[in-house]
């Protein structure tokens, strides 16, 4: 059940400014009224886009066709809804570059083969300025070398080692790997007293 190996993501970038952009904003709760993730792409940031009246980064023509979303800090905080990365993925994004990410959001990204790469605040500022100056440039996130390359130069990125390996090995869809340990799962369950309603403990 191995998936494709993800070594890099390349493409044009979109600059979305703001700290603490939560998953309710990425996909409002009314779009969680569904039993499939299909079709969520068009609703990404719907309320923010309406509020911005055409001035939202996702509606900025300069960023049309962007594959990489450059954000600031704590992007994707809040609700665990996987609908958020699903909506962004279906909108066309394959990687996120930012100062920091909500933990559940970044885990959900990994589970879908999307990259979350962290840069220092200074580098995010430089990258944003560079993309705004030349939105046509190609940005590359390299998982292997943990770098982000753009006209602003090559920047050192942070990707947790376990996640980096999952992407590089193609084991980001974790089920197959987890299933491999079938006997060990049973053994762990046997050792946990509460799983066995505390019958097997002897004081």
């Amino acid at each position: 059940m191995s998936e494709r190996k993800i070594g890099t993501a390349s493409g044009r970038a979109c600059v979305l400014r703001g700290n603490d952009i939560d998953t309710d904003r990425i996909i409002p709760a009314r779009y969680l009224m569904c039993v499939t993730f299909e079709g969520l792409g068009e609703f990404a940031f719907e309320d923010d886009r309406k509020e911005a009246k055409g001035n939202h980064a996702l509606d900025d023509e300069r960023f049309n066709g962007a594959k990489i979303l450059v954000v600031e800090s704590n992007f994707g905080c809040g609700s665990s809804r996987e609908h958020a990365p699903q909506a962004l993925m279906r909108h066309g994004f394959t990687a996120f570059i930012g100062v920091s990410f909500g933990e559940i959001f970044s885990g959900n990204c990994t589970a879908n083969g999307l990259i979350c790469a962290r840069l220092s605040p200074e580098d995010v500022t430089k990258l944003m300025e560079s993309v705004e100056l030349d939105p046509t440039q190609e940005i590359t996130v390299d998982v292997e070398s943990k770098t982000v390359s753009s006209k602003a130069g090559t920047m050192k990125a942070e990707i947790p080692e376990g996640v980096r390996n999952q992407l590089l090995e193609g084991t980001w869809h974790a089920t197959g790997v987890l299933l491999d340990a079938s006997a060990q799962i049973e053994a762990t369950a046997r050792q946990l007293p509460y799983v066995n309603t505390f019958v097997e403990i002897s004081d």
Partner: protein
Amino acid sequence: MAGKNLFNKVWDAHSVRELPNGQTQLFIGLHLIHEVTSPQAFEMLREMGLSVRFPSRTFATVDHIIPTDDQKRPFADPIAEEMMIHLENNCREAGIALFDTSSGRQGIVHVIGPELGLTQPGMTLACGDSHTSSHGAYGSIAFGIGTSQVRDVLATQTLAMGRLKVRKVDVAGKLGRGVYAKDVTLDIIRRTGAKGGVGFAYEYAGSVVESFSMEERLTLCNMSIEGGARVGYVNPDEITYNDLKGKAYAPSGAAFGRALSWWNNVKSDSDAEYDDIVEIQGSEIEPTVTWGINPGQAVGINQPIPRTSDLPDAERAGHQEAVAFMDVRTGEPIAGTKIDVAFIGSCTNSRISDLREAARIAQTGHVASHVRALVVPGSQAVQKQAELEGLPEIFQSAGFEWREPGCSMCLAMNTDRLKGREICASSSNRNFKGRQGSPTGRTLLMSPAMVAAAAIRGNVVDVREVI
């Protein structure tokens, strides 16, 4: 050698193996599911030709989409009904116990787990909901997961995870009158910021936490994620054990005694090491209210909303956005802000002690004429207990609506929603833009007692003036 904290003990006991990528394959002792984040996971399992590995270790309920006015089937909203049917079919096919409205045990997933004694010390617990951290109140390691991870737990009862760092949050001394667990969590988030806890599990400790009831501990752990921490927990003690005695799924008889020795063993050692320690004086915490668009944007009831110019450069843009959206005046206190709606409910504050405290204040007056106020119990058990105590009559005669159990206006996936620019005094956990169902609606988070007081005065008020 230094001792171990509870997080690391529980983590190690549940470690199936170290994965080649360096992560841990972690056994999940209890898995809770609901109708919103599970249907896609079951579909993924079907596509992979897999079945549920340990169906007896997963329990389901319906909470997010359920109406709170009329819960008769079929639900008025056809999509809500469709989601309910998916949950029923998935649970039936997999052999998973479902607590629906006919069970007498339905309710918000983070209310019913503890209520039924499913949540126990020393467990790992996962649910496709970020407020799963609530269950840490019992000394479990509990965290929210996405739908792909729900799939992994269904298929294998395990997850691939990286170990978290542990921060001890010590709340010393005593709380003042009119200061509640909700104020403690809002104060912690205000101090550490909405992202201050990313990468950490929080161990809540100190005399304030030790003296908290289980319901207060649930409120405290519930909002860990609002400060960025995926996990929050309290070491189990006599209060925990007394609470568990006699609950439906808690061990009983001789097994309870054997459970006690296991539970006592998972507590943090007195010389345990932590990656970080934060100390807060309980006496310094005031009734706390959020004024902005993330839960870290909060102030003590009598403190001024910060001015943009007082903040570091990096925070100014976000601050200005919040001030503009909320239309609040900086440099002035939040007290006195006129409200349109009052909501008492949610996985943070919908338990019986919350409702008792709110009812005590509701008794002192009547909901202001311009305010729409609703009380939504967290579960059918809370509802029943409240009825036994006559709370619905108190609320109703004071002008509050008394509803059926569910998540309701915390995230507005049913018809309980703000309209337009309404401002809501809310006992829930998130003040994000649009969270309560109107894209332009505004939320002020506070304790249930503060919500009740605001409902009666018609504006935000220091609850200490009322009790």
